[in-house]
């Protein structure tokens, strides 16, 4: 249990083609050779068929998915990035997971304003046109929901890395350093905190310490080169690198400077972490180092049988880069250093691979991230010993996949 029916059939089809090919394809009637396919003979689409292109129809299964029972309704809810279908480190805009509190607001950019008020020398209002005249920067950052993997605190529950780890995306943002906008207003000496507020009906607010605001936060208007998607805060969102996704206020309309935090709903009732003794951590902003093997995984079984096998996964840390990931095939008895591939950027996803010769026997796969501060990703049990099982947020424990002889994979926990 259970790759989707579709993915398993696809795998089976691929396996039979592989078996039939074996050096005598034409004789055995491999249709890839024996029949002239329509795309070999007929004309393809004209250049004006898709002014804004979509993926191949054969990739239609690569989709965000939701889990209806997680929330009371689909408006204040969550969906999941299909990590098991992606490679590299950049998440395509249309697949970036969504988390709304009053739905995805459709904001007219001509009527959008960004206000800065509070303990500033000049309370200001910016139009989108004004904002386009500030110096810009480009940075790749991961955005991880504080609740990513939160359903797994009590044990294995959801069968697939899309569901267990898919409240995350990683894109290149183009935006204005927040400190430039704040300098324009002039922060007064007593201004130690910033309240960011969204323009949607949830009026999302979070308190952010001024040191972070002046450090690396951005007010972003583009992702992966194009305008923010509606569901990602079009036309303007806050980027708070390395910190929990809730703080990345979408449809950003106001920044207030104050001398104390506001203790609003999303930093008291929500996004506080209840420990076993009934006390709760507040302001747990940073996302700890974490990793997951995306392939193989429950939604991406091994369909090729024994032999050369590519293990692939993602690792990230809210505190820096990921210089190293270890992987185990035997549930943690023995570990191997994975091969990092692609750019290593601070507070961004990193891609790792481990190529091995699968002997066809069951595997217990895990990955363990090391970040540039020396932090090593803990096991779930190590976290539970410190926090209990009711903290909902910030579960960065090591994930285990049980790969069976059939190649099917399951979300499990091991001793």
């Amino acid at each position: 249990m259970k790759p989707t029916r579709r993915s398993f059939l696809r795998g089976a089809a691929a396996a039979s083609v592989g078996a039939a090919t074996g050096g005598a394809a034409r004789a055995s009637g491999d249709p890839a050779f024996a029949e002239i396919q329509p795309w070999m003979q007929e004309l393809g689409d004209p250049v004006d068929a898709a002014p804004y292109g979509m993926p191949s129809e054969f990739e239609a299964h690569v989709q965000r998915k939701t889990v209806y029972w997680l929330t009371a309704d689909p408006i204040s809810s969550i969906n999941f990035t299909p990590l098991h279908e992606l490679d590299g480190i950049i998440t395509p805009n249309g697949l970036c997971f969504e988390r709304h509190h009053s739905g995805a607001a459709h904001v007219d950019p001509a009527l959008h304003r960004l206000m800065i008020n509070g303990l500033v020398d000049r309370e200001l209002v910016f139009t989108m046109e004004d904002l386009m005249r500030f110096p810009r920067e480009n940075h790749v950052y991961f955005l991880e929901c504080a609740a990513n993997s939160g359903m797994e605190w009590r044990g294995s529950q959801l069968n697939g890395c899309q569901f267990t780890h898919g409240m995350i995306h990683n894109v290149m943002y183009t935006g204005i350093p927040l400190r430039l906008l704040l300098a324009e207003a002039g922060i007064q000496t007593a201004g130690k905190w910033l309240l960011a507020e969204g323009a949607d009906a949830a009026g999302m607010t979070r308190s952010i310490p001024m040191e972070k605001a002046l450090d690396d936060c951005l007010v972003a208007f583009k992702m992966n080169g194009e305008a923010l998607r509606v569901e990602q805060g079009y036309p303007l969102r806050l980027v708070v690198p390395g910190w929990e996704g809730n703080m990345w206020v979408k449809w950003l309309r106001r920044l207030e400077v104050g001398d104390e935090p506001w203790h609003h709903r999303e930093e008291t009732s929500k996004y506080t972490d209840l420990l076993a003794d009934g006390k709760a951590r507040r302001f747990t902003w940073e996302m700890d180092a974490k990793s997951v093997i995306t392939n193989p995984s429950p939604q991406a079984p091994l369909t090729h049988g024994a032999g050369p096998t590519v293990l692939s996964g993602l690792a990230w840390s809210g505190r820096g880069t990921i210089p190293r990931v270890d992987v185990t095939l035997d549930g943690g008895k023995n570990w191997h250093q994975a091969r990092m591939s692609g750019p290593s950027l601070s507070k961004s996803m990193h891609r790792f691979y481990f190529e091995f010769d699968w002997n066809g026997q069951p595997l217990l796969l895990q990955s363990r991230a090391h970040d540039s501060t020396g932090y090593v990703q803990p096991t779930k049990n190590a976290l539970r010993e410190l926090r209990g099982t009711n903290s909902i947020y910030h579960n960065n424990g090591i994930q285990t996949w049980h790969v069976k002889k059939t190649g099917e994979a399951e979300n499990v926990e091991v001793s």
Partner: protein
Amino acid sequence: MSRFPDVLKALAAATLIAPAAFAQDAAEAPEGGFGLGRVATTEEVAMWDIDIRPDGKGLPVGSGSVELGEEIWSYNCAHCHGDFAEGIDRWPVLAGGEGTLSDDRPVKTIGSYWPYLSTVYDYVYRAMPFGYSQSLSPDDVYAITAYLLYSNYIVEDDFVLSNENFSEIAMPNEENFFMDDRAETELPQFTAEPCMTDCKEQVEITAHATVLDVTPEDGGEGGGGGID
């Protein structure tokens, strides 16, 4: 260092003290700044700046009784949150759960968990009712807040909440929150060089996701423990 000649800066400054009709002129360029945007009017700030802090900063003048709150509640809130704030179906439970925070299944409500009353006022005023935000008057929200205090056995049924007595209300769980301490309690423990070879003799599977079997095959229905 300004990008604008002094004479332009002087002109920009002059507009700041000009009549309101000219208030939409460009902001004065701060030292080293760009002079982009414009000064927000007092009215504009008042329309958007509705946030409330635990010390009462931001509270509008007004008041509301438990009695009136119950009436407003029944029309605007009870169809999701229940007549007594006990919650209907999956909608949030707002009352009850006292003393459950260290239980196996804690019930986190305004009364049992929330540290500050200001958060109740702020959130109801900015974001409730769900689907019709900012439709309640300040007095309505005082009354609803009073009713929620009553539902949580924090005040009597003749209580009237106002901006005057708001700060006198202490929430039961305020003291049980503390600042993120991972830097002291977790990071040192998780920075040791880990074992690479022959780390354990036996490995047993202790939990299976497929036993619960709540993963949607194609985004379909399921059932299990949520995260909201």
